[in-house]
C-alpha cells in the first residue's frame, strides 16, 4: 500500500477526507477489512496510557504498537471529526460493496477468509461509562488484548488484511466556550440569573457534545458569479412557544458544514439592500420555513461614512411572518462585516420583536458566533469583522470616570499637604535645646 501522508498537526479530518484516505487504502491494499470500533476514543487516551513519557513498559497498547510496526504501511489520523468516524462503517460498506459482519475473536477463528472476495469484519470494543483512571486503563488494556488475538488469528489464516482502529465518538471534548454572554454578546459586569439560564445551559451542554470541529465555510449568496452576501454562525436555532413550553429546532446542521446545501431562493442583493433567504423544510411542524436576513446600507451625514444595518430577521412559515428588528444594535461600517458572540432575541437581546402584537413574540432565535456581511464583499471571504463587543464596557467607563475624579482629589490634597511648612523663624541650632519638664 503506498504510504499516505499523515494529516498536519491539529487538522481535524472531515468526512470527505476520511473517505479519500479509505479509498486510497482499499484501492491498492487488501480488501479484507478488520474494523475495531470502540465506543469512544481520543488521542489523549494514547498519550495517557501508551507509555508516551518514556515509560514504555507501562503502555497498555503493546499489541497495537506491534501491529503498526510490523505492518507494510500505516497511517495515524490523530483527530477525526465525530460524525465522520461514526459514518465509517457506511463508507466501508459502500467502498467494499459488502455488508459488515459483527464478530468477536471466537467466531473469527471459525471463519474462512478469502483473499479475493472483500469482507468487512467489525469488532465492537467497549470504553466504559464514567470511567475513573484505573478502569479506563483496564478497559483499554482489555481492548488491546482483543486486538492482539484478532490479528494473530488473521496471521494464522495467512490472508492479507487492512485493519482500522477507530471509535464512534470522542472520549474527551475540547474545553468549551463560556456562553455567559453579556450586553450584545460582550462581557457583562452586571449579570443576573434568569430563570431560563439553567435550561439553556443544559441545552448548550448537549449541543456542545455534538460536532465541535465547526470548521466550515460561510453560506454564500452569489449574484452573477460574484459573492454578494456572506453568513457564518457556529449555532443557529429557533424556538417557538407552544402551550407554555419552548420547543426548539437546531438549524445549524442544515445550513453549515459538509453535506449541508441551504437553498437560497428569494435572496437578492444590490447596492443599498441585501436580503438573504434560507429555505428549510419541516421545521417545528411547518412544512416550509424561511429564515430571512434583511440588510440595508446608506450614508450617514453626521459620521460622514456609510454604515450597514441588519434591519430585520424574519421567520416566514405557512404564510405567517414573524419579524425581529435588529437595526438598533446590529450595525457596522459598510466596508466591514459584523460579528457577535451571541445574537439572540431573549438574553441581552439584540433582536427585538417588531411590535408587541407581532408573532415574533412567540419565537426565539439564537445565533452563536454570528458573522454577516451584505455589502462590499470582495472574493469570498469576510472583510474585517467589526465586533459587537467594544474594548471598554459602560461599567468600565463609569469606574474610570469616578476613579479619575478621586485621583484628582487626591492630587489636590497631596499638593496642599506638601506645601505645609513648619515654622522655623525662631530655630536656633546653636542655642540650648528646648526642655519640656515632666512635672508641673
Amino acid at each position, binding site marked *: 500500500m503506498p504510504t499516505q501522508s499523515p494529516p498536519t498537526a491539529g487538522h481535524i479530518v472531515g468526512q470527505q477526507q476520511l473517505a479519500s484516505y479509505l479509498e486510497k487504502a482499499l484501492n491498492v491494499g487488501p480488501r479484507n477489512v478488520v474494523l475495531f470500533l470502540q465506543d469512544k476514543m481520543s488521542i489523549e487516551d494514547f498519550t495517557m496510557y501508551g507509555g508516551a513519557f518514556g515509560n514504555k513498559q507501562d503502555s497498555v497498547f503493546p499489541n497495537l504498537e506491534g501491529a503498526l510496526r510490523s505492518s507494510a504501511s500505516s497511517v495515524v489520523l490523530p483527530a477525526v471529526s465525530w460524525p465522520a468516524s461514526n459514518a465509517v462503517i457506511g463508507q466501508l460498506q459502500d467502498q467494499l460493496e459488502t455488508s459488515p459482519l459483527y464478530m468477536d475473536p471466537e467466531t473469527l477463528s471459525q471463519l474462512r477468509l478469502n483473499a479475493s472476495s472483500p469482507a468487512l469484519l467489525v469488532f465492537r470494543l467497549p470504553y466504559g461509562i464514567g470511567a475513573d483512571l484505573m478502569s479506563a486503563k483496564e478497559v483499554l488494556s482489555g481492548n488491546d488484548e482483543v486486538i492482539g488475538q484478532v490479528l494473530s488469528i488473521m496471521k494464522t489464516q495467512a490472508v492479507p488484511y487492512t485493519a482500522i482502529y477507530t471509535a464512534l465518538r470522542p472520549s474527551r471534548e475540547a474545553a468549551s466556550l463560556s456562553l455567559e454572554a453579556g450586553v450584545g454578546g460582550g462581557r457583562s459586569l452586571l449579570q443576573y440569573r434568569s430563570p431560563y439560564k439553567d435550561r439553556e445551559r443544559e441545552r448548550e451542554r448537549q449541543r456542545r457534545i455534538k460536532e465541535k470541529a465547526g470548521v466550515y465555510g460561510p453560506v454564500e449568496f452569489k449574484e452573477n458569479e460574484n459573492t454578494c452576501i456572506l453568513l457564518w454562525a457556529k449555532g443557529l436555532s429557533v424556538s417557538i412557544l407552544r402551550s407554555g413550553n419552548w420547543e426548539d429546532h437546531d438549524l445549524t446542521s442544515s445550513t453549515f458544514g459538509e453535506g449541508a446545501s441551504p437553498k437560497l431562493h428569494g435572496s437578492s442583493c444590490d447596492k443599498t439592500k441585501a436580503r438573504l433567504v434560507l429555505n428549510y423544510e419541516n421545521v417545528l411542524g411547518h412544512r416550509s420555513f424561511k429564515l430571512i436576513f434583511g440588510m440595508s446600507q446608506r450614508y450617514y451625514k453626521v*459620521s460622514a*461614512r456609510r454604515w450597514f444595518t441588519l434591519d430585520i430577521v424574519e421567520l416566514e412559515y405557512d404564510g405567517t411572518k414573524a419579524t425581529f428588528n435588529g437595526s*438598533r444594535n446590529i450595525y457596522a*461600517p459598510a466596508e466591514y462585516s459584523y460579528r457577535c458572540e451571541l445574537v439572540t432575541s431573549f438574553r441581552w437581546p439584540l433582536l427585538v420583536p417588531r411590535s408587541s402584537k407581532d408573532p415574533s413574540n412567540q419565537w426565539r432565535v439564537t445565533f452563536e458566533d454570528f458573522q454577516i456581511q451584505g455589502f462590499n464583499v470582495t472574493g469570498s471571504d469576510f472583510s474585517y469583522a*467589526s465586533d459587537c463587543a*467594544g*474594548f471598554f464596557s*459602560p461599567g468600565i*467607563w*463609569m469606574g474610570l*470616570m*469616578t476613579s479619575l*475624579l478621586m485621583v484628582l*482629589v487626591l*492630587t489636590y490634597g*497631596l*499638593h496642599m499637604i*506638601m*506645601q505645609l511648612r513648619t515654622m522655623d523663624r525662631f530655630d536656633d541650632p546653636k542655642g540650648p535645646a528646648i526642655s519640656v519638664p515632666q512635672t508641673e
Partner: protein
Amino acid sequence: MLLEWMMNGHAILYTGVTLAFWSTILIVGICYTIFDLGFRFDVAWFLTETSPFMWANLGIGLAISLSVVGAAWGIYITGSSIIGGGVKAPRIKTKNLVSIIFCEAVAIYGIIMAIVISNMAESFSGTTPETIGARNYQAGYSMFGAGLTVGFSNLFCGICVGIVGSGAALADAQNASLFVKILIVEIFGSAIGLFGVIVAILQTSKVKMGD
C-alpha cells in the same frame, strides 16, 4: 541644579500625572487611527450607556464635598489670623467670629443642596437607553450639573470670605474702626455663594426621575 529641582515632591508628582495623562491620550489616539477604528469613538454611546445614577450621585457628592472644602479653607485662613492677632489684641476675638460664620454658611448651603438633590434620585426600571427614557437622562445630567454648580460656587466663595476675613481680623487688631467697613466686602463675597445655590435650585426644578 536640575536634580535639585526635580527632587521637589511637587515637581515629581505633577510631571508624573501630566505624563501619564498625555501619553494615555496619545496612545489611545494613535491606536484608533492606525487600526481605522475611529468609528468606535462614540460620545453618544458613552452618554447613553453610562447610568444616570452615576451622574446624579457624582453631583450630590461634589455638591457637599466642594462646599466643605471651600468652607474649611476659609475658616482655616480666618481662624489662624484671628488667633494670631488675638495674642496682642484680645478684643478682636468676639467680633471676628462673624467672618467664621460667613464661611460656615457656605458649608450649610452645600449640605442643604446635597440633601435636596439626593431626594430627587428615584429608581427606575429600564436597562436600555430606550426603556430608560429621556426624562431619566435629563434628571441624571441636571443633578450632576446642579451639584457642580453649587460645589464650585461655594468653593470659591469660601476661599474669598476666608481671605477677606483674615484681612479684617488683622486690620481690626490694628485699628478697631476698620472692621465694620471690611464687613461689607465680606457680605459681597458671601452673596456669590448664594447665587450658586439659586442657580442649582433652578437646574433641579424640572427633575423627575423614575418610571
